[in-house]
C-alpha cells in the first residue's frame, strides 16, 4: 500500500515548525533567491535558518525537502550549484529539481541524496519520467495536475519511481515550467526568477463604488464587485473581454483552488506515494489548518476508517474549489 506521505509547505521557519507540529511527514522549502519557484519578497530561508529547521524537523522524525525547482539561465548555474552544496551540507533529505543540468550536478556530486522531479519539469508521460529516473536516479516524480486517476494508476505500473500528486492549493492550469504569461507582462520569469506576478508589479486599486481592480504591470487583469470573492493577481485567472464575450469572462481559469480531499482513498489505492499541499506563500494559519485536516484524513484512511474531511473552503482562492483534471478531463 502507498505510504501516503504528507508533503507540506513552509515559507518561513515558523511555518516549518507549524507544519512539523501539525503532522507533516515532510516539509518542503527554499532559499531566498531565484533557485525556487516561490521567490517572494520576505519569504524563504537563509542557510542558518535552514540549518535550524533541519535540526527541528529531524528531531521530530520529519524530512526536509529543498526546492531547487527553477531553470538556471545560461551562465548563472553557479547559484543553483551553490544552493545544492549548501543543502547537502545542512543535511536535507531530498532535492526537488526541474532542470536537467541541476539534476545532473546533484546526481554526480551527492549521489546519496534523493532527487525528486518537480512539477515544474512537467513530466507526465512514462517515457519522460523514465528518462529522468534512468539518467539522474530520480526517486519520485511530482505529477502535473493534468492526469485523471485511471491515468495515474496506469502510469504507476510503467515507471520505476514513486508518485507524488498535489492534493490542495493553488490551481494554475498552464503547463508547469512552461508558462510565460507573467514574463510577457513584467519581464520576470516564473521559471527562471521563481515568481509569478511579482508583488512589485501588482497593485490593487479601490474604486469609488467599493469594487477593487487588480493590476499587473499597469494592466487591469480583474475587477471584483463589492460582494465578489477575489483571487490572486495571476494572468491565468484574469477576466478578459473578448469579441464574443464583451462583458468579460475568465478566459483560462477562474479564481479557484484544488481540493482532492474526497479523492484521497482512490488516489492512495492508485498507488500515489505522497501528497503535496501547495502554499509556501501562505500563512502559518493556513499551514496549520490544512496540514491538520489532511493528517487526520490520511490517518483515518490508513486505519480503515471513513475519512472525515474538514471543510477548507475558507482557505481556497475565490472561496471555490475543484477536483480539476483528477476527476475528469472535461473539468474546464
Amino acid at each position, binding site marked *: 500500500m502507498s505510504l501516503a506521505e504528507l508533503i507540506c509547505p513552509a*515559507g*518561513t*521557519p*515558523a*511555518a516549518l*515548525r*507549524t507544519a512539523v507540529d501539525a503532522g507533516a511527514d515532510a516539509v518542503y522549502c527554499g532559499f531566498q533567491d531565484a533557485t525556487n519557484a516561490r521567490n*517572494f*519578497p*520576505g*519569504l524563504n530561508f*537563509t542557510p542558518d535558518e535552514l540549518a535550524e529547521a533541519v535540526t527541528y524537523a529531524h528531531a521530530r522524525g520529519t524530512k526536509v525537502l529543498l526546492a531547487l525547482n527553477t531553470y538556471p539561465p545560461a551562465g548563472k548555474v553557479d547559484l543553483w550549484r551553490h544552493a545544492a552544496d549548501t543543502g547537502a551540507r545542512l543535511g536535507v533529505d531530498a532535492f526537488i529539481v526541474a532542470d536537467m543540468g541541476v539534476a545532473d550536478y546533484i546526481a554526480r556530486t551527492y549521489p546519496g541524496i534523493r532527487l525528486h522531479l518537480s512539477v515544474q519539469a512537467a513530466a507526465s508521460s512514462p517515457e519522460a519520467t523514465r528518462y529522468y529516473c534512468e539518467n539522474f536516479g530520480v526517486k519520485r516524480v511530482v505529477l502535473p495536475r493534468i492526469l485523471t486517476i485511471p491515468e495515474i494508476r496506469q502510469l504507476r505500473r510503467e515507471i520505476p519511481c514513486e508518485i507524488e500528486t498535489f492534493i490542495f492549493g493553488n490551481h494554475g492550469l498552464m503547463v508547469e515550467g512552461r508558462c510565460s504569461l507573467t514574463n510577457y507582462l513584467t519581464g520576470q520569469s516564473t521559471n527562471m526568477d521563481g515568481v509569478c506576478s*511579482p*508583488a*512589485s508589479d*501588482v*497593485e*490593487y*486599486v*479601490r474604486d469609488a463604488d467599493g469594487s*477593487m481592480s487588480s493590476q499587473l504591470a499597469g494592466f487591469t487583469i480583474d475587477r*471584483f464587485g*463589492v*460582494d*465578489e*470573492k*477575489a*483571487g*490572486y493577481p495571476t494572468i491565468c485567472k484574469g477576466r478578459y473581454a473578448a469579441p464574443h464575450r464583451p462583458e468579460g469572462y475568465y478566459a483560462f481559469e477562474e*479564481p479557484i483552488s484544488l481540493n482532492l480531499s474526497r479523492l484521497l482513498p482512490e488516489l492512495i489505492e492508485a498507488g500515489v506515494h505522497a501528497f503535496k499541499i501547495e502554499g509556501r*506563500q*501562505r*500563512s*502559518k*494559519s*493556513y499551514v*496549520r*489548518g490544512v496540514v*491538520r*485536516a489532511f493528517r*487526520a484524513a490520511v490517518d483515518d484512511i490508513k486505519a480503515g476508517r471513513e475519512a472525515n474531511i*474538514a*471543510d*477548507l473552503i*475558507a*482557505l*481556497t*482562492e*475565490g*472561496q471555490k474549489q475543484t477536483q480539476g483534471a483528477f476527476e475528469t478531463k472535461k473539468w474546464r
Partner: protein
Amino acid sequence: MIPTSEPTARLRPGEGAIARLACLVLQPVLTRVVRRVATRHPSLFARLGPHQATDFLIDPVELPFALHLRPDPQALVFRAVPRDTAPQAGATIRGRFLLLLELIDAEQDGDAAFFSRDLEVSGDTEAVVRLRNALDDMDGSLAEEASAMFGAPGRAVLARLRRAYPDATKPQEYA
C-alpha cells in the same frame, strides 16, 4: 516611485475630537508594544528588507483612528493618527481591528481574508507582502504578549474585544 494611498475619510460629527483624544491616550501603549516587539523579534527586520523605511497605514475600519507604522529599527514609528490627519502612506492595510490582530497572530490567513474581501490592501504590494511574511515568522501571539504587558486589565480588554467582534471568516478548527 512608491505609489501612495490614503485612508478612507469616514468622519462623523464629533469623531475628529474623539479620535484625537483616543490617539493621545493610546500613544504610550503603542510605543511600549512596538519597542517590545522589536527587541524580542529582531529577525523581523531582515524580512522587511528595503521596506523598513516604508510608511504603512493600518486602518481598522471600526475604530475612529488609523495606525501609522514605519518599521525602521533605527527610528521606529508606531502611532495612532486621526484619519483626517493621517500621513500619505506607501501602503495601506484595511480591515476589522480584530481581523488585523488575528492576522498578525497567525490565527487567520491573510490570503483567505483577502479572497473573502475582509482585508483590503492598496499602495505598494511588495511592502505589504514583506510585512505579512515578517510578521508571520514571529512565534507566539502578539496580542497576548501586548495584553500581558498591561497585566489583568490588558488581558480583560483583549477578551472583551474578542467577544465584541466574533469571527466570520476563520476556518473551523480541526480536532
